[in-house]
């Protein structure tokens, strides 16, 4: 399995070089146009500097920015023992060194994401809506997918590549807007008389680059992001040995029309499924970070085992596409572990019925008392008295 990460690393490196060249070219062209005396070097330097600063911020603070943007709350095992157990099961299956931190997001829409720069600094976050809707095996499928992102080092890579794309878009947008405002004229026109024609050519080059580079960098980024989603599905299934869990979870997720309030364009590639229904419609397009969810489900359901080869075969069958989703070394695997039986669903209809609100209340340190009359009393953490009366039957409960 380790070779897989190595292959990923090589591919990511290539992408970085390509996007980096685009970024430097763009910066150089823009600055050469604005200030020919600098020969474009200062612009290239500034472009790289912007990228480095943004990368450092997202590398060290990305996870916490993402978590606070989605108003996620860190939970302990008492709040949701089953979620903790499932994460630990997948930690054992993946052989990752430490347990990721677990967060719950107060949202009705079912979704989940992983974040963090390395397996030792990793975070898994799920929405309350997801916990309320999925049974044990489905939840395990989702967690396995997220742990696969951590295992494959996808998060760090997608964050840094995303930042690079962001830098490219930022620079070209500043330039294009500047052009619009100044009506095509350079702000710092050179005093050299013979530079008029050269200036025009440079301007056209800068204009073309600032339109094309973001598009190509974007296409590259999106296509890699989609590949990583397939790979995370395949790796997750290899951990859980149960494709149907993830398949039926994805089905439930795509079946809900609720949109996430706290997600936006920047954070959406992190989620297991696109958080907006608008995005879901355009999902087949080249400018989507996720493959169409129906396709993912169909691939998972046509697997004849849980190995990488089995996923690749199912993928090629469905897409009529022989290109490798799994890096070569993963395909040299000799064994194809079988699909396990469905685990007993202890969660029962009873606890699945616990709605999203209850889970969030537990995350916010509420206490629950089951009264003999059948009412479930929710005691807020601010409540300081020694006892509480049931609001329905009046029974006194001591706390």
């Amino acid at each position, binding site marked *: 399995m380790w070779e897989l990460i190595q292959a990923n690393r090589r591919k990511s490196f290539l992408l970085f070089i390509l996007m980096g060249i685009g970024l430097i070219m763009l910066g150089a062209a823009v600055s050469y146009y604005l200030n020919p005396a600098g020969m474009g070097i200062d612009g290239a330097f500034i472009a790289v500097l912007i990228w480095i600063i943004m990368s450092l911020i997202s590398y060290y603070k990305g996870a916490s920015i993402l978590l606070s943007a989605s108003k996620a709350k860190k939970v302990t095992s008492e709040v949701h*023992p*089953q979620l903790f*157990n*499932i994460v*630990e*099961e*997948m930690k*054992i*299956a993946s*052989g990752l060194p430490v347990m990721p931190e677990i967060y719950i997001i107060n949202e009705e829409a079912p979704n989940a994401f992983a974040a963090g720069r390395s397996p030792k600094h990793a975070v898994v976050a799920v929405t309350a809506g997801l916990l309320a809707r999925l049974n*044990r095996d489905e939840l395990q499928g989702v967690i396995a997918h997220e742990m696969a992102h951590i295992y494959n080092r996808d998060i760090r890579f997608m964050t840094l590549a995303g930042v690079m794309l962001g830098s490219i878009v930022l620079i070209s947008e500043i330039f294009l807007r500047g052009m619009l405002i100044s009506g095509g004229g350079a702000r710092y026109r050179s005093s050299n008389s013979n530079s008029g024609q050269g200036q025009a050519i440079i301007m056209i080059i800068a204009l073309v680059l600032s339109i094309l580079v973001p598009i190509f960098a974007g296409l590259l980024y999106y296509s890699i992001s989609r590949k990583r989603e397939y790979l995370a599905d395949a790796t997750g299934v290899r*951990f859980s*040995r149960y494709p149907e869990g993830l398949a039926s979870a994805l089905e439930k997720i795509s079946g809900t029309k609720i949109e996430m309030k706290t997600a936006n364009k920047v954070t959406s590639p992190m989620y297991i499924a696109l958080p907006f229904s608008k995005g879901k419609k355009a999902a087949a397009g080249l400018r989507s970070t996720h493959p169409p969810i129906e396709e993912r489900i169909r691939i998972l359901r046509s697997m004849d085992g849980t190995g990488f080869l089995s996923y690749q075969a199912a993928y090629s069958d469905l897409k009529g596409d022989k290109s490798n989703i799994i890096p070569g070394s993963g395909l040299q695997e000799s064994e194809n*572990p079988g699909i*396990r039986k469905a*685990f*007993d669903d*202890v*969660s*029962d209809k*009873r*606890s699945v019925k616990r709605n999203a609100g209850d889970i969030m209340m537990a995350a916010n340190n509420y206490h629950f008392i*089951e009264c003999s009359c059948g009412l479930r009393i929710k005691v807020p953490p601010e409540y300081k008295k020694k006892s509480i009366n049931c609001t329905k039957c009046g029974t006194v409960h001591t706390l």
Partner: protein
Amino acid sequence: MVPLIVILAIVVVLIIWFVVIYNSLIKLRNQVKNGWSQIDVQLKRRHDLIPNLIETVKGYMKHERETLENITTYRSQAMNASGVGEKAQAEGLLGGALGALKIAVEAYPDLKANQNFLSLQEELTSTENKISFARQSYNDQVLFYNNKIQMFPSNIVAGMFTFKEEEFFELEDPAEKAVPKVEF
């Protein structure tokens, strides 16, 4: 002079090669050990859960004394077992006995509604999942390690330092082996 340097170079390369293989064997053996301790932790956890479970269900399940006694017996057998093979057999029997309990529980709706029992059951299920996931990765590692010991050229180094093949951990579930009885 030249032949001497050539011979020296070959010796140095051989020594380096030897050290690299030896170290990789040690690393693999440690991984297998670590994999085994992962299983062991979960097996112990299951043993620890059982007294609590029996205490909880005892009051409800008046007619299942035999099932409960089976679990207690197999638990103490499993706790006394040593070695991978012996443990696998004892734990397989314990797993079968617990499976029988799970089926028996279906007849007691009161018990299934008990909050304490539900959380115990989640713990037990999760522990069993953890055992099976730890078993997967342990067996993967054992396979890798055993292959390395058998294959040339690492088998030479393995033979010199008596690296022994490790045993797979295969849980036998008696319930799975039994021929299902079909009744009409």
